């Protein structure tokens, strides 16, 4: 039996191994890998461990790592991988804001090639011309897409790029003698939480603009709070609601008028690549997520890449070093006198940089714009259909959206008692993801969908069919829903202990102490 092509629903069951925790698989004496021994002459000339490491610092108790032979280790982790739902397996439109698009395998071939994996970051320039050329060219594309002057790939992700933006802001005002005075950074409530949190790390006071009726931040609110204490505005646009702020230029002007800087969080770039840019809106800084719009895979949460671009005036503050070109050869430029230093070691995550580069070369200028357009088409297609699903609605009005939408199951909840979380969990029974929202939960019972350009109409229809099915189940069989999932890797998780300091176990040894030993004691007493 195959998937029902009419209803588009599958009789899915995820791999379920009931796999023990690795420590439970230990078999004393077994070896997973053997280490090359030091040659006899080396041992003779260097000495034994006792002479080489002072007694006081020598390890006394063996680390209690499991002992397993190689195939068993492999099998264990292979099974765990089967119990994970990567974008390669599912129609991954339900992880809104994450831009889960296709990570082309041709790029994987070269990201895993020894000519990249075996490079050391401190090698002589002459030996890494290929890597530098790749990085430099990627920078040129980023410049085109933003209109900004120079890019660094050092930040390991979007949030670290925000940290870098904040640091540049700080350095800039210090250089003008205004460091102490400018202590406020403004952001909006639907911008990514890191726009506030990363800026707060550097000691800034964070002013958040609340949203208006239409879900957009109010220009009047911004005007009411800018002053000579404003260091910067950090804003995501379109915000996670999927709504583009048409007044963005006015926002930037308002901040510039008081001498502040503007930083563009372009995590939500996918719907506007090549269609509208940071420069024309007036931004001084902007960053892109290489693992979102630019196709590098997410790796369960990294490694990733944040490409940060700045205007000419701010170039001197960029973290060092930068991959540069002198007309003949590529070189590593560490000579940025006013640099903020570093936010991360070395020059970025090379495999991620390669994957972004490979994707852009494959789709080209035309493809970048087409990707954006199709992402937006896909999103509005889903928007139309989701609005028709019983119990669901899009937040903030009837219009179109850009690349994602923040929806709400509030009506479903009121009618049936089924929450957004319940729906997400039931989606697992169909092999699908569905994500809710970043904090704060302004939209009640939220769910956020971002199709990207990577899925076909048929696949979008498949996802919609599952959403409809779950909505239908909520109205007809809520009790069943409340106890989902049934076809997944485990059953309903008991979250209570995770909140209780006496029960939470972040490691196996804590689990032994807090759960297992206690049970043994109870058994003994009984």
């Amino acid at each position, binding site marked *: 039996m195959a998937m029902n092509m009419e209803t588009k629903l599958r009789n899915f069951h995820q791999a379920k191994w009931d796999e023990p*925790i*690795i420590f439970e698989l230990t078999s004393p004496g077994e070896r*997973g890998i053997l280490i*090359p021994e030091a040659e006899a002459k080396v041992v003779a000339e260097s000495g034994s461990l006792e002479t080489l*490491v002072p007694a*006081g610092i020598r390890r006394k108790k063996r*680390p209690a790592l499991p002992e*397993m032979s190689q195939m068993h*280790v*492999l099998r264990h982790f*292979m099974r765990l*991988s089967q119990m*994970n739902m990567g974008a*390669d397996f599912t129609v991954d439109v339900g*992880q809104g804001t994450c831009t889960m698009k296709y990570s082309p395998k041709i790029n*994987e071939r070269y990201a895993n090639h020894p*000519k990249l994996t075996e490079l050391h*970051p401190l090698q002589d320039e002459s*030996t890494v*011309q290929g890597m530098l050329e790749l990085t430099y060219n990627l920078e040129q594309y980023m410049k085109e897409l933003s209109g900004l002057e120079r890019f660094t790939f050092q930040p*390991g*992700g979007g949030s*670290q790029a925000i940290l870098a933006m904040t*640091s540049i802001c700080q350095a800039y005002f210090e250089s003008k003698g205004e460091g102490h005075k400018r202590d406020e950074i403004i952001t909006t409530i639907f911008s990514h939480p890191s726009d*506030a949190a*990363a800026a707060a790390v*550097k000691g800034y006071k964070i002013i958040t603009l609340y949203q208006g009726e239409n879900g957009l931040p109010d220009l009047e609110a911004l005007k009411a709070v800018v002053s000579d204490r404003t260091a910067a505005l950090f804003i995501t646009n379109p915000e996670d609601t999927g709504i*583009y702020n*048409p007044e963005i230029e006015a926002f930037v002007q308002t901040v510039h008028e008081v001498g502040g800087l503007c930083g563009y969080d372009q995590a939500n770039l996918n719907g506007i690549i090549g269609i509208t840019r940071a420069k024309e809106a007036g931004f001084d800084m902007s960053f892109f997520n290489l693992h979102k719009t630019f196709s590098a895979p997410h790796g*369960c*949460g*990294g490694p990733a890449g944040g490409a940060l671009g700045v205007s000419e005036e701010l170039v001197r503050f960029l*973290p060092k070093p930068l991959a540069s070109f002198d007309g003949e050869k590529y070189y590593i430029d560490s000579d940025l006198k006013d640099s903020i*230093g*570093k936010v*991360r*070691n070395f020059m970025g995550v*090379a495999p*991620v940089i390669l994957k972004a580069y490979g994707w852009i070369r494959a789709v080209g200028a*035309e493809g*970048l714009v*087409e*990707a954006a357009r199709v992402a*937006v088409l896909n999103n*509005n297609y889903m928007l*139309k259909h989701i609005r028709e699903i019983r119990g669901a609605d899009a937040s903030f009005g009837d219009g*179109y959206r850009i690349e994602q939408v923040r929806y709400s199951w509030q009506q479903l909840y009121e009618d049936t008692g089924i929450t957004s979380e319940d729906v997400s969990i039931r989606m697992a029974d169909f092999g699908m993801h569905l994500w809710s929202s970043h904090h704060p939960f302004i939209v009640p019972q939220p769910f956020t969908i971002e199709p990207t350009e990577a*899925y076909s*109409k048929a696949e979008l229809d498949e996802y919609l069919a599952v959403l409809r099915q779950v909505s239908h189940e909520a109205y007809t069989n809520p009790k069943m829903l409340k106890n989902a999932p049934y076809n997944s890797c*485990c*059953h*309903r998780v*008991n979250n209570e*202990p*995770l*909140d209780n*300091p006496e029960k939470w176990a*972040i*490691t196996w*040894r804590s689990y032994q102490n807090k759960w297992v030993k206690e049970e043994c004691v109870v058994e003994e007493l009984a």
Partner: protein
Amino acid sequence: MSNFVHPYIPNSVKSIQEEMLAEIGANGIEDFYDIIPEKLRYKGELNIPKPMFSEAEVDRHLRELLSKNVTTQDCLSFLGAGCSPHHVPAICDEIAGRSEFLTGYAGEPYEDYGRFMVLFEYQSLMAELLDMEVVNVPTYDGSQAASTSIRMAQRITKRNEILISRNISPFKLDIIKNYCRGTMKVTMVDVDDFGRTSMEDLKGKLQPNVAGYFYENPGFTGVIEDRGQEISDLIHDMGGLSLVGCDPISLGILEAPVNYGADIVTGDVEGLGIHQNYGGGLAGFIATMDQEKFVNEYPSRLFGITNTSVEGEYGFGDVFYDRTSFGEREHGKEFVATHAALWGIVAAVYLGSMGPAGMEEIGEVIVQKSRYAMNRLNAIEGVAVRGMDAPHFKEFVVDFGQTGQTAEQINKALLEQKIFGGFDLTNHHDGMENCALFCVTEVHTKQDIDQLVETVQSIVREG
């Protein structure tokens, strides 16, 4: 443009687009962009190359580009300084390439059960190595972990100054300084000729406003510190926290820092089954004991194990906690973000493969081989290894000052012989002109080391 179809964009087929537009009731895709003011619409040409439509073109292009690189497999490399050459077990590559993990992200502990469990195992395996109870899901790199541990100390002690040992990577120091600028004062603590903490200087600087002291063991120059307990006691007496950075691959033979009084232990899992990746294979860890005052301060996710509605089944989720006990706190607890989870998964496979015996053996081999290299290089006339008499792990500083050549010149000459010499410290570390940091691990055979020594010898003689 109207014929543009791409394998990565299924709905680039125009007939499908028309179908979809009809269903939506829109005239064209342009309708959706109406909200963007005309003025902000980019009308220029994007100076980005045309598409390489065929995959064969992309394949060739990337191959040709990368072929311009000369790697640590093409040459003999002794570079370390935060990115170490270690053998990557083939099964680590196998799991790193599992697309379920590679293309996974942030699903629920149901359909993404594997991710939660594997990262829980990573946390647990590291905890055994570190002999501690709480380890976080990996952060960007060890320097970020160190920076966060410093800010955690600030929040816990409510003090705004941090002491840092001078024997630290210049990169790490830059990162920490940037992270702390605007909120904390950074004061450096001197080191002795071996590169270990000067107890006298430390004592003098441990003032009431100090949140803690951060140092690494082994230090940046590879020297092993064995007075850790004494250092911790000094700090604790002043109400501060002992923050220690360590190298996980040394923990088979070196004591876990917690056992000499460290409160927050950080480091990087680079090298634990992860390729060098031009510096992209880094992932930081932060470890503490399971006390609320510490757990409360982690900015990153902590995965915990629990049960489910079915007896005997394991379940997983995020540990979160009640902060009612902390009415006063430093402004914000940093940020949660996408860091370096996949490397944590790979490190878990590595540690699972190595087991206690493997970790012991690799530590022993590294310490023997690096000592062998130290001895032989030091024996070359004009060349001196700093801190010869102090115990070292994996790395050591070679001083070329007496050779009449700069470290740069030596390295250039080594390169001509297809050897990557140590990291030139001349512009990066005070008092280290014409010194280079050499890294020797289990991947270097006696023959490799002898080749280095003989080449250096001939370069020095000719110069």
